[in-house]
């Protein structure tokens, strides 16, 4: 049966990839962000996944309010991105890799047999929510992926409890996949976020809000069930209209059960959004004996 060999959470700020070209002059926080990506890239490589399940929100690029899926499995032959306007605005490189169709269909079919009304699509482009973490964590573009899109931007948005339940279910579905496959899951989201709102640049004065600091502490030492229950759209929205993007980290919490991360880093600074990195290893996910 398939094995969950790695779970990672990483940010997807589209300005991050370009910082690789000005390493010599990067502020400390941005350098730590790059280094965190490099560390996770090496660890993902060492985990030797056969497939990466990539979970992120689309940013009203692929899906719009005319036809908005809450959770969607991409089952096209290939996963490609980003959108031309993202390439133009942020200098993002193209990403193009195979989709692991058998696992995509397994997650879809078995998910629907349970109580998750997953949508599916054969026609989509991955936006920066997928392309940024994939290009920094697996630049070789040689590992098949299964994209799982989540709605974290256009209300109504499912509460954290449902993201957590879906994460839990996806783990069971992965482990029930009848193939000798090593699966890594990468989820991408963020901490406080106000892109497009009046507080968009508040990080220049206050790199981390009280919510960022307390949530980070609770991720490591707090009651996870309480945190998950608290993560409704309205609550997260009250901390920034983009903060519901944290729900994709809540999905990861559903995957890993009660386990705390093996490694984590929260980078911040006056020139960047807070960037949260979390990693759970095979040993922690599966225990030493397995």
């Amino acid at each position, binding site marked *: 049966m398939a094995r969950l060999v790695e779970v990672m959470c990483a940010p997807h700020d589209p*300005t991050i990839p370009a910082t690789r070209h000005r390493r010599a002059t990067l502020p400390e926080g941005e350098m730590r962000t790059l280094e965190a990506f490099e560390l996770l890239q090496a660890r993902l490589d060492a985990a030797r996944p056969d497939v990466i399940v990539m979970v992120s929100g689309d*940013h*009203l*690029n692929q899906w*719009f*309010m*005319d036809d908005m899926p809450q959770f969607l499995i991409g089952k096209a032959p290939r996963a490609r991105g980003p*959108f*031309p*306007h993202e390439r*133009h*605005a*942020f200098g993002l490189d193209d990403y193009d890799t195979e989709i692991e169709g058998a696992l995509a269909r397994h997650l879809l079919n078995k998910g629907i047999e349970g109580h998750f009304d997953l949508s599916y699509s054969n026609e989509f482009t991955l936006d920066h929510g997928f392309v940024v973490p994939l290009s920094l964590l697996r630049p070789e573009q040689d590992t098949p992926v299964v994209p799982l899109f989540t709605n974290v*931007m*256009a*209300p*109504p948005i499912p509460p954290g409890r449902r993201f957590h339940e879906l994460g839990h279910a996806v783990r069971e579905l992965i482990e029930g996949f009848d193939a000798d496959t090593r699966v890594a899951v990468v989820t991408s989201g963020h901490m406080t976020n*106000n*892109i*497009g*709102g*009046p507080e*968009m*640049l508040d990080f220049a004065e206050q790199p981390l809000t009280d919510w960022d600091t307390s949530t980070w502490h609770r991720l490591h030492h707090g009651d996870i069930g309480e945190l998950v229950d608290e993560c409704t759209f309205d609550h997260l929205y009250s901390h920034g*209209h*983009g903060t519901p993007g944290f729900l994709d980290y809540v999905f990861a919490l559903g995957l890993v059960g009660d386990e705390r991360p093996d490694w984590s880093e929260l980078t911040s600074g006056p020139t960047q959004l807070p960037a949260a990195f979390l990693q759970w290893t095979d040993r922690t996910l599966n225990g030493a004996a397995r």
Partner: protein
Amino acid sequence: MNRYGVNKVMYDVYRDNDNATAFTSDPSAYLAPYDLTDEESKALTNRDVRRLVEGGAHPFLVFNFALCLAGGFSIEFCLEYVNNLRGLDVGDITT
């Protein structure tokens, strides 16, 4: 404000370079097929990000719309954008 209609215009403009060019060269003609009030058309034509966000347009769409028409990302663009929104509260964005 007809949030859906205004959001749709911005989505169509920033995702498609031809639409962005058409909007830039003749905003009235471009907006004619959309179901918009005069005030909504005016806010879009004037790229009035404050009025758009105030009316409940999705801030991320407003940002992408303004970014696309500005021609690219820069700190200067972000500073001017935020300056235009100073003091606003982002309210309900449900469509």
